């Protein structure tokens, strides 16, 4: 074991810090930087021009798509440098390392692995430069956890596919230019084999988007209807019938991005600050033994997530593939997401009831948003029960239940 970094890696860390000091839009204070108020969707939209400048500065460094191969326009960087970059930008509370969130997290990796040369040239640069945003069309009203039962269909008509059906819970659908879409192309095949993956422009004729409001009052996702939407065959990602493999690859990427720890580390710092400034029974909450036990347990879980991430990273560096293992941290994060919000509101006491904009609201309602937004991380990307199935079946070898 060796937890030190090489001279080159340390030099890279310094370079990242200098870059952040000059380009991080959250530098020099601001509520987001102090951890007192989250970037909710609305404020992110307000800050769009600043965010685009940030993205551009990152692109010039080759730090968007950091470990993607250089041939496709990625940074060609190593996994350790990537970790350093994420750590430092997390610490500096910088925005995400690239704005095209789904494009970077799993659509891009999917295109790099399964796409044609033409698709790589067409889509990757726009993802890197945040000119195009992507949404993900997997879930349907009748197909959630049992994703492979999906029914939205595509029928071949000459050199086009004609899509009809419905998707739902499609995050960011209303702001995206493209969708990575799963459709059934062969209703006669076994359910996992009849699925194909298509790349669909959201402005195609016959695509209709109806936003859905969530329990936190924001509108993060939408229903998407396809009324005989035509897309050319060259928009197919992978072979016909290969959609499930493409998705498994994408889901592993999605889970590992959810399983990342930087956000949790920042949450903990903020929680610590909260526990120092809030009073409970006449003393600072941080002195309350029950709060201390809960806080320490959370810290321990976050540290475990961090270290397990490093252990799996080492495996990757040694050339092993990481698959079902990412479910370990995904499950841990699910528990943490709920407990962080619960503990924060418990610490705030009566003030825990006050949301953003209220007189007396603490940290501009950040923790209330947390307590109302955890399902995004807990349910999105596969529910805890599904992660438990994955772990039980793929890591412990227990029989499939369905």
């Amino acid at each position, binding site marked *: *074991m060796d937890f030190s970094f090489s001279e080159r890696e340390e030099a890279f860390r310094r370079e990242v810090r200098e870059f952040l000091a000059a380009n991080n839009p959250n530098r020099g204070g601001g509520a987001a930087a102090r951890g007192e108020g989250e970037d909710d969707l609305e404020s992110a939209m307000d800050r769009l021009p600043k965010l685009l400048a940030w993205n551009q500065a990152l692109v010039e460094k080759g730090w968007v798509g950091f470990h993607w191969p250089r041939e496709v326009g990625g940074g060609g960087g190593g996994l350790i440098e990537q970790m350093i970059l994420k750590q430092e930008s997390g610490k500096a509370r910088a925005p995400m390392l690239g704005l095209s969130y789904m494009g970077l997290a799993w659509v891009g990796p999917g295109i790099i692995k399964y796409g044609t040369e033409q698709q790589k040239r067409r889509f990757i640069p726009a993802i890197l430069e945040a000119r195009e945003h992507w949404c993900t069309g997997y879930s349907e009203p009748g197909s959630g956890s049992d994703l492979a039962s999906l029914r939205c269909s595509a029928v071949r008509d000459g050199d086009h596919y004609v899509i009809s059906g419905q998707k739902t819970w499609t995050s960011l659908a209303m702001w995206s230019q493209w969708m990575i879409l799963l459709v059934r192309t062969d209703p006669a095949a076994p359910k996992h084999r009849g699925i194909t993956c298509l790349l669909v422009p959201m402005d195609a004729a016959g695509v209709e988007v109806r936003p859905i409001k969530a329990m936190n009052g924001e509108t993060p996702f939408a229903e998407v209807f396809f009324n005989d939407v035509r897309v050319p065959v060259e928009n197919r990602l992978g072979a016909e019938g290969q959609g499930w493999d493409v998705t498994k690859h994408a889901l592993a990427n999605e889970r590992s991005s959810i399983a990342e720890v930087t956000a949790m580390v920042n949450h903990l710092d903020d929680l610590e600050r909260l526990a120092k400034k809030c009073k409970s029974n006449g003393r600072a909450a941080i002195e309350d033994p029950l709060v201390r036990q809960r806080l320490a347990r959370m810290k*321990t879980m976050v540290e475990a997530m961090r270290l397990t991430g*490093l252990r799996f990273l*080492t495996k990757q560096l040694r050339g092993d593939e990481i698959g079902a293992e990412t479910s370990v941290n995904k499950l841990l994060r699910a528990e943490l997401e709920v407990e962080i919000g619960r503990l924060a509101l418990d610490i705030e006491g009566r003030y825990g009831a006050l949301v953003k904009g209220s007189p007396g609201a603490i940290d501009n309602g950040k923790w209330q948003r947390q307590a109302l937004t955890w399902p995004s991380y807990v349910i999105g990307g596969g529910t805890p029960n599904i992660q438990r*199935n994955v772990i039980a079946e793929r*890591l*412990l070898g227990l029989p499939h239940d369905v």
Partner: protein
Amino acid sequence: MDFGFSADQEQLRAQVRRFLDSECPMDRVRQIMAAKEPHDRGLWSKIAELGWPALTIAEPYGGLGLAWEDLVVIAEEMGRSLFPSPLLAGAVAARVIAQMGSEGQQARWLPQAASGDLIATLAVLEESDDLSAAGVQLVAETNGEQVLLSGRKMFVAHAQAADLLLVAAREHGGVSLFAVPAHAAGVTVTPLRLIDRSQRAAMVALEAVAVDHADRIGAPGAAWPDLAGAMDAGTVALAAEMVGAADAALRLAVEYAKVRKQFGQPIGRFQGVKHRLAEILVDIESSRSLVYFASWAVDHQQDPRAAVSMAKAYASQALDRAGEEGIQVHGAIGFTWECDAHLYYKHGRYCRNLGGSPEYHHERLLVAQGL
């Protein structure tokens, strides 16, 4: 950055595994549990031949000069087999001698400890079970050329098998440490009856036991910081052992869940069963990460307390859950003496408070981080 074991360490793990599988399978463990002997001398001399007691002792003193993370590899496999042995207690004692002892003291004890001819153990805790320096109340009184030790130690690991006790005593308002032959006049070792029979511990009474000033390890009244540091290293080894035991309990339950059929199917197909087992794997992988890191931290960090506390707290959770669920998955068979499930459960009950409970370590974590 490299958070994994080296090829050498993996080889060591495989060697330990092979040895324990062939020399100390569970029926052998059960024999040792039932035996009256303080420990199994035959197995001890075999592991001494393999160099396990020498592992972390420096080369000039006949050791192999390896790191604490290497010991943790052995500890995890020991836990998997519930291998009853004074090995870890001896490693902690050797660490104390190496860190605090004079050159003469090291030359006197370490070569014998490395060869396995001398088994040493720490005698620090007393009836208060207070893990801080304040818990050390046993009296050291200077009497001319000698020091007289009087008091009682509790929970002394493997004292029954020990040749040498490293006894913490109150002196000059601080804590001093003395090397006391276990068979010295005035020393009485009374075995404790433990819930976990794979372990051994004793109450040790000292009645005006006379030692020389040369037997004092470290400066008078100033032993506590180094002693506490070595005990932390011991806590990490214990946590590694617990992770191994938890994993063994889990695997036993998983194998049973694959073959036991009810309602026409293996019970491992029911989510009430498989999901609990999946969560236990998450606990085990998480505590493994924390334990491995802590094993590195005790050799490389100025203040590894936070890493140690996190490892111990989480390992307790993993073994508690694995031990309990291991019984439940087996149904009534899990309640029988014959089924091994209870052995892991009992080990969990015993280890939970050994070296500090999860609650103790949660509190200590925050203190170590300045909160």
